[in-house]
């Protein structure tokens, strides 16, 4: 049984049919990526799994339990964390306070341990612990958003466009951190427009086009796939 099983998911924005019957699975320990152009339904899919958007049809099972209709604020306790598009750190709070919010559902004692782990992955955050998050650079804010999501000790972390707006060198850094998080046992569901980076670290990948999955395979296979190369990797 897979950790996450999405089956025939349909999501609407008003009358717009944004996700049209998407099905995929994520196994424990994997990095799975959803790639596709703007508006393909990638973020919508993640937001629906996270309980932010309602689904019209279909099912989502996480560790054997149906989670459609569970409100977003109960997902952390179930073991799912979403690191949202655009980072959405609390800009008027310090780095430390942001991390504390990430561990909102856990006790202070548990958080004290987890914070050390997070600083281990992101040493730069420790240096800036008492700085207000709004003053961090884009890359640091992304690290903070990921660290904050990790504070809930999720079994599955969903990352929505972690490379957005970052310099190439930072993109490399962020992806190597994602890889190391995964090596430490966190299952990753990654949504990316930077398809080549995403495919290079993913175990498996799904290609979305206008709300449907049009291709799936291992990361390395899709990296060599002619259609994928033409459409998403610039030739």
């Amino acid at each position, binding site marked *: 049984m897979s950790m996450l099983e999405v089956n025939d998911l349909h999501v609407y924005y008003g009358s717009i049919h944004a996700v049209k019957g998407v099905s995929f699975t994520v196994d424990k320990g994997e990095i799975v990526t959803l790639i596709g152009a703007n508006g393909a339904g990638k973020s919508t899919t993640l937001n629906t799994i996270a309980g932010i958007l309602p689904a019209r049809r279909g099912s989502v099972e996480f560790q054997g339990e149906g989670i459609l209709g569970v409100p977003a*604020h109960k997902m*952390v306790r179930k073991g799912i964390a979403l690191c*949202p598009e655009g980072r959405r750190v*609390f800009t*008027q709070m310090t780095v430390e306070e942001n991390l504390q*919010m990430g561990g909102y*559902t856990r006790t202070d004692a548990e958080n004290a341990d987890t914070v050390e782990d997070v600083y281990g992955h992101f040493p730069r955050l420790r240096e800036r612990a008492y700085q207000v998050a709004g*003053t961090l650079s884009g890359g640091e804010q992304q690290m903070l958003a990921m660290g904050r999501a990790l504070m809930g000790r999720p079994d599955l972390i969903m990352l929505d466009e972690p490379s957005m707006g970052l310099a190439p060198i930072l993109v490399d850094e962020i992806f190597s951190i994602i890889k190391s998080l995964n090596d430490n046992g966190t299952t990753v569901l990654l949504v990316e427009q930077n398809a080549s980076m995403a495919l290079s670290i993913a175990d498996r990948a799904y290609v979305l086009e206008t709300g449907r999955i049009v291709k799936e395979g291992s990361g390395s296979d899709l990296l060599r796939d002619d259609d994928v190369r033409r459409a998403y990797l610039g030739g």
Partner: protein
Amino acid sequence: MSFLTALINGISLGSVYAIIALGYTMVYGIAKMLNFAHGDVIMVGGYLCFCTVQYLGLPTLAGVILAVVGCTALGIVVEGLAYKPLRQAPSLAVLITAIGVSYFLQNSALLIWGADPKAFPSAVSFPSVKLFDGQLIINSITIVTVLAAVLVMVALTLFTSRTKMGKAMRACSEDKGAAQLMGINVDRTISMVFAIGSGLAAIAGVLLCSAYPTLTPTTGSMPGIKAFTAAVFGGIGSIPGAALGGVLLGIIEIMAKTYISTQLSDAIVFGVLIIVLLIKPAGLLGKLVPEKV
């Protein structure tokens, strides 16, 4: 000496405005709505305290506690029944609802307690402080009011900066979507802010009625509007701003009454507000979002 007296009275009145303004500003910060019924919660607080002392014969302190508990509950109920269903509605709908709640509370008070002004029993019984051979008299209620405001301010600051609940409140004020991803129950947090704001309004109600001891169903309206002005003056959404705005507004009002004209004092207060907003549209301590570096 009259200047000093006016200044002290101004600070005292301003302290009441500050406590009310804190409720406005916290609710605005998290729910992004102007709770125009906030002033009427003050009035309810006043009546609750009045009834406890007058009809139940309990000491004033019991009246204060009952007023706080009652108003806190009222805040939660009003939020749950009137505002929560409108969470996704346009802000104009919420604003009109708030005005409706305001009228509802005023008219309910009219039904229950009638239109006749009630003489409010003084909340404090220890004597006034006389300084400079009796030239400067500071009423005990003045001292209690200022102390209460300072205490409330310190408690709120500690609450929002130190406790997990308080930080969650700030997180919700900034980004509700991100806050719920942290596992924060945004709806419950908003209810809690209404509860705190209404509890503060009850304290303000008792203090206000002790200083100006007549109680009618519209007692809360004018202080409510003044405190709202104070919150905007200081920068709405900012807790220190509400305190500063409240105290300044109180001082300006009493100074205007003492040295210019009693009739014109309100006009002067709102005139100053207009000037401040022309120069600093976000209010004195309006939130500055830090720049990226």
